[in-house]
């Protein structure tokens, strides 16, 4: 189990390294050129590449963040075991749901 979580954490980290670099660059570009929400949405509506990219981004984050938090909580609080794992699974699901909802909001 631990080896699996560790592998998932590291693989998602590599995916995120690329995704974050692209995302940061995009955001900095958008804020630099002063794009409004409307202008941004005009570019993202119906943009399949955008949807796929951010969809992958959401999945990677939903894997990476809960596993990271699991380490923090196990090490810095007395919380461990089944209930912790379930809580983090719930957090992962939350990120997936909210994330895909946001992607759809901006794509559709």
């Amino acid at each position: 189990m631990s080896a699996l979580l560790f592998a998932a954490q590291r693989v998602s980290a590599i995916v995120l390294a690329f995704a974050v670099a692209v995302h940061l660059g995009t955001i900095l570009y958008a804020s630099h050129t002063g794009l409004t929400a409307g202008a941004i949405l005009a570019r993202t509506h119906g943009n399949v590449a955008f949807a796929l990219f951010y969809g992958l981004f959401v999945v990677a984050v939903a894997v990476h963040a809960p596993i990271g938090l699991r380490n923090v909580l196990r090490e810095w609080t007395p919380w461990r075991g089944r209930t912790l794992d379930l809580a983090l699974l719930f957090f992962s699901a939350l990120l997936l749901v909210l994330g895909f909802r946001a992607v759809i909001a901006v794509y559709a």
Partner: protein
Amino acid sequence: MRASHTQRGFVAAMLHRLSGIALAIFLPLHFLALATALQGANALDSFLALTRNPWVEAAEFGLVAALALHMTLGLRVLAVEFLDLREKTAALVSVCAAAACAAGLVFVFNLG
């Protein structure tokens, strides 16, 4: 202060961990904000209008810096673990921190 807590590796790990926690808290909020676009561009714009105040902008600087910091320090860990690199200690950690601040500054100056 405990001796191990002044070491470069520990400082790097704490910055990495704290920025990670901040991002994990921020992310659901970020998704919620973006989803206001479901009600159309105007809804997103009016939400974004709320963010045009100095406290929020300071927080945004912090978040962009946190993102850049978490990524660059994460890359340090990946390099030691999978590329079997030797940590060039202080130089690497400072470069990470500098890159993070630079990214945040660019963001903040672009907003003004």
